[in-house]
């Protein structure tokens, strides 16, 4: 099911790139299949399917597809190049989960006591939704920066619409990220007796939050309109991806510790 969902996302990306409207349906089908796959996994495991890198990668992909679908409900918001980029991100996340992670990491595991908490779905679920919206914003940043000959669309009006979508995606993702961090701090207090401990994952989440706080400060400044905001959205996406994928690698490479590495 996961591979089928990933294939739907990839085909949706292709269809959008070619300007075929079937891309929207393929994306919706992929999101529905992935939701079913995660729900079935949760039922089999007996806990929320948000406890491992594999499960979070799938939830992140679902969040990205959902964000793209929500923003495609209105005709004027359907920007093919942006939808193609966003669905490609979702497909790559599924591919990472399914093909890059070792089989042992993909297996259903019993819930570790550390994750047996009501805060798990709140903290991790909102993070997946936030990351999805921010991936869409990053995709919008990339779409904004693409030259016309690559995007195949008229310049100025596309950039105005893409810029507006970028702003709305961050307007959704940034508060969700903040909410996820608040849930996380309450959970950390309950689990470890401290709501902030400068853990590597916490630091990188703060870095990501600060990038979007910076966006929040400059989004209405004339000097920052256009290219700079697009770059900021891309830097934000890079930070999101590093917080998810890079922290474990950094911890292993530099020899650091983190309570968030499961």
């Amino acid at each position: 099911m996961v591979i089928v969902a990933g294939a739907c996302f990839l085909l949706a990306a292709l269809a959008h790139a070619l300007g075929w409207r079937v891309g929207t349906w393929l994306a919706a089908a992929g999101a529905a299949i992935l939701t079913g796959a995660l729900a079935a996994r949760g039922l089999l495991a007996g806990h929320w399917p948000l406890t491992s890198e594999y499960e979070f990668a799938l939830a992140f992909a679902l969040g990205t597809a959902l964000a793209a679908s929500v923003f495609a409900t209105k005709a004027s918001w359907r920007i093919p190049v942006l939808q193609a980029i966003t669905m490609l991100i979702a497909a790559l996340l599924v591919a990472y989960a399914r093909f890059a992670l070792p089989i042992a990491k993909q297996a259903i595991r019993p819930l570790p006591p550390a994750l047996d908490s009501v805060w798990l779905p709140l903290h991790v679920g909102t993070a997946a939704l936030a990351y999805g919206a921010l991936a869409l914003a990053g995709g919008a940043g990339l779409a904004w920066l693409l030259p016309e000959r690559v995007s195949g669309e008229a310049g100025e009006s596309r950039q105005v619409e893409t810029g507006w979508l970028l702003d709305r995606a961050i307007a959704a993702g940034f508060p969700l990220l903040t909410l996820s961090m608040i849930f996380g701090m309450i959970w950390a207090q309950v689990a470890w007796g401290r709501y902030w401990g400068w853990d590597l994952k916490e630091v990188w989440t703060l870095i990501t939050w600060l990038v979007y706080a910076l966006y929040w400060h400059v989004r209405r400044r004339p000097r920052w309109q256009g290219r700079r905001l697009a770059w900021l959205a891309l830097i934000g996406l890079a930070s999101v991806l590093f917080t998810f994928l890079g922290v474990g690698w950094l911890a292993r490479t530099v020899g650091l510790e983190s309570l968030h590495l499961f």
Partner: protein
Amino acid sequence: MVRWGHTLWKTLGSSQLAVVLLTTLLVGLLLAGLFPQMPTEPGTRETWLEAVDLRYGPATGLLKQLGLFEAYRSWWFLALLAGLLLNTLICTVQRMPRLWHALSEPPIVQRPEAFYQGLAHQAQWALGSPDQGLAAARDTLVQHRFQPQIEKDDESGCAFLYAERGRWSQAATLVSHIAAILLVLAVAARPALGWQEGNLTLLPGEVHSVGHGSDLEMQAGQRVTGRRPGVPLGVSSGTSAITRTVAINHPLTSRGVTFHLQGYGPAVQITAPEGTFGAALGGSQAQEVSLPEAGLTLRVAHRPEDEALFVEALAASGALLGSGSVAYGQEVEIEGTPITFRLTEYSVWQASRDPTFGLAVASAALLFVAIVISLWVPHRRLWIRVDDRGDAWMVGAGDWAGAFEAMATEIGCTSHLRGESDG
């Protein structure tokens, strides 16, 4: 001097400085995230520093001087945070009067003709019937959650409409600044107002005084299994006592002190005529237990291969008296002292008190609400002026973000629009 002070005051509260400080803080965090951070628990620092010395070799001294092993307590990091805090505070103070004025003063509905030339969003059209046209515009604006007001100037024969929405959202940025200041203050005050003591190893029945100005005593029980394994913990103070099974993620709080279960493992309970002693058997290294009255020191280690205890008995001088495996529950006599070894479990606890947590969560929640409002409830203002010939001008101010043209078209404007791209 006054001008210089004014410039400094403006600069310290400027959003340009905020952008510079936020960017610098980002770079600082990126740098700090590359290096291991020194543990705060006393007694672990020496070992940690030895390990760091081995890893970074000759660069260790320089990295230490730059504060990179204690980055979040270093002078440069604290200075950055203080700078950001000061900038936010001054910015808040600077904006307060203007915001108060914007929120409390009644809006000016009748504006002179020149006013309509100065704003970024402009539209112009001709109304057949000024009264009907303005009434229709008012109805449209009400549908869009604006609060319109209409006034007429009998002298000039002009009619005016003023409409506004999201008036209170102007306060969101200010509220977010106050929330951020409170959040940082809560985090900063935590070490001074609260305390945390971890790695408290207790054997079943063992009593530990919590200390830190509290008269609480804690006593752990035997681990219980089941869906949620945990350890019963009794916390008492004078005549009052509370007992509950504490599990990971499910702490116990009594009189502001929270008790977290950090872990558990095998332990040995040693019963001798002079008393009962205990030792954790978690690691591969032998643990030492002294029996002062008997003049003995026992080195004990669990042998998982035959589920027995390996015991070495040493005299007070350190001389080895004998060694061998002992079955759990068996009584042995060492140098005339009868000793029984029982397998049990130890539990590891953390006791902490954090009075800043409530403030931190409340200010973070306030920050969240302010972010949502500032991003989703735009403050928009709109003025319409219709002269006695029926010519209408409409101008908008605030966060329109591309919506002015659509609004003008819906109201009935047919010509001369400008200022859409500048948001």
